[in-house]
């Protein structure tokens, strides 16, 4: 088990190192000069340009040798300094991102956990009821094939625009100030429902189909047949099948994290929900590269932490990994 976690941590450490290095390399080796494009966005008198270029190069440390720049980058990164956001008038990037992070996490964590739980339960039930199965399969495929933002758009259009049940955009009403009151909590919740619902639905379809297929496969396995032949109650057989079928679903959760994060980002854009997705769109539109790279690093760190949590869950669920046998290939 120590070897299992050691290996995982090595991979995650390397991944972080590679991701951070990519982050450092891209603006420096890509065609085009970030300082130039920064200046071209503001109208600057032509005679001032060389001075400004020198100023910015010194500010960002671009006049130092590359290895020195690279060390500086790690130094400031480990101090939590990700630069300053141009579009948020020079606020530190870390501060801007930390302000948006609770919204994204508040959306993602419940959506992931609830859809995983409900999808697995539902898929397991559907696997043994023909009429449910016939309904679940097509709906599941449609849901899991729908692009996240399109489902979000449809939810926003039907529930928000046509039926007018929930507010379409924002994290809370502009009329309210964030505070610890009932009115604000209710308002926050009303704005949360639709983005949550659309994320939940897309993921739910995928988990339900996966579980249904796994259960059918497991019920066909030798151990299930043997139990059946022994005359074990079908509830018991199904419980064993469920325990085995849930393992690939845990692995699947780790594999899906990237897609889920992408889905959350675009869903937030649809609803103008004030999380990382909306911030990302603003960073792209304003060519705010520090902010963009900061979001990239936060997404990477978040995904790595989530991966590690999934690894722990896998060990808890699969006793084979605990006694050092094979099995945990998550």
């Amino acid at each position, binding site marked *: 088990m120590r070897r299992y976690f050691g290996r995982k941590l090595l*991979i*995650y450490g*390397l*991944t972080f190192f*590679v*991701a951070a290095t*990519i*982050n450092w390399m*891209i*603006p420096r080796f*890509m*065609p*085009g000069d*970030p300082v130039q494009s920064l200046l071209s966005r503001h109208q600057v008198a032509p005679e001032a340009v060389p001075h400004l270029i020198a100023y910015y190069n010194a500010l960002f440390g671009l006049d130092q040798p590359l290895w020195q720049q690279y060390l500086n980058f790690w130094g400031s990164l480990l101090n939590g300094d990700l630069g300053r956001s141009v579009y948020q008038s020079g606020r530190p990037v870390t501060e801007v991102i930390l302000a948006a992070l609770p919204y994204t996490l508040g959306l993602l964590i419940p959506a992931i956990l609830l859809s995983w739980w409900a999808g697995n339960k539902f898929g397991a039930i559907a696997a043994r009821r023909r009429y449910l199965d016939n309904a679940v399969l097509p709906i599941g*495929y*449609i849901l*899991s*094939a*729908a*692009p*996240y*933002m*399109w*489902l979000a*758009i*449809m939810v*926003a*259009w039907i529930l*928000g*625009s*046509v039926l007018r049940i929930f507010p*379409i955009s924002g994290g809370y009403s502009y009329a309210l100030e964030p505070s610890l009151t009932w009115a604000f909590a209710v308002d926050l919740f009303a704005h949360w429902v639709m983005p949550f619902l659309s994320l939940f639905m897309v993921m739910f379809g995928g988990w339900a189909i996966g579980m249904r297929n796994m259960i059918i496969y497991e019920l*066909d396995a030798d151990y299930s047949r043997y139990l059946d032949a022994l005359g074990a109650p079908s509830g018991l057989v199904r419980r064993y099948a469920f325990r085995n079928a849930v393992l690939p679903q845990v692995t699947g959760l780790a*594999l899906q*994290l*990237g*897609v889920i*994060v*992408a*889905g959350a*980002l*675009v869903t937030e*854009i*649809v609803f103008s929900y004030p999380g990382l*997705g909306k911030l*990302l*769109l603003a960073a*792209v*539109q304003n*060519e705010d*590269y520090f902010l*963009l*790279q900061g*979001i*990239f690093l936060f*997404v*990477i760190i978040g*995904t*790595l932490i989530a*991966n590690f949590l999934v690894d722990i869950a896998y060990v808890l669920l699969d006793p084979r990994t605990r006694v050092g046998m094979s099995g945990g290939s998550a």
Partner: protein
Amino acid sequence: MTALAGPIPKAGESVGRAREVRYFVLRSRKILISAVILAVFLVLAVLGPALRPGDPNAFVGPLGAPPSSEWWFGTTTFGQDVFAQFLYGLGSTFLVGLAGGGIAALIGVTVGFVAGYRGGITDEVLNMLTNIVLVIPTIALLVVVTAFFKARGIVVEAAFIGLTSWPWAARAIRAQTFSLNAREFVDLARISGVPSWRVIFGEIAPNMSSYLFMTFILLFGGSILIAASLDFIGLGPTAGVSLGLMMYNSVAWSALQLGMWWWFVPPGVAITAIVGALYVMNVGLDEIFNPRLRES
């Protein structure tokens, strides 16, 4: 459909297998329905430029008109023909899927074969690389890389998608190669001095051709979805049309609040139908190649 038959049949047994596959393909409702859906959209995409010649972004019609006999899918807030954009967008969607899925399949297959066949230290290194790319969220990587590209075309977008979405395929193919590697006929080829690449492409690959084809189908669908998300963040092709870009524009110009459903419903329906058809086709093929899954 020809790819289903796998490698060119050699002896009587292979012909029998090809015939068997054809027999089940023609009787599989899943495959037929999904093939028809894909064919309809493909025909629309190919005929698109002929049906609606000219620039799909041109301002040709009334502003924000609902669908009518003249403007089948209505017009945008600026008087662009949604149907024209839809047709051209379908073309880019298929292109992104084909190119992105193709590149990803190529890398995944190569890495998977080499890692699975060589084993040892090569496998360790490639596996580490695969795991690293696997953990990094594709979209985050694509966002940083594409944001620094000033002029982006659909092909560049597809190439980036292909370069980042191969890891799971590599892992699956590696596992398959491992299990085939232990078979006698592979050992026989190896000890009779056949070069590695011929063992891989002559002995191992044909035995998992169905698997490779299904991997490509899934990568195809995945590329389409990733491209749509990327377009929606505003990092899609800088010139031209795509289905993701249509959704981006409709949301950016408050089509939701204005109730202009004809602007954002068609592109989403098309993507969902294409990707869904690919998934269902994958399941249908799985049932053919894996007799245990066939419906009784």
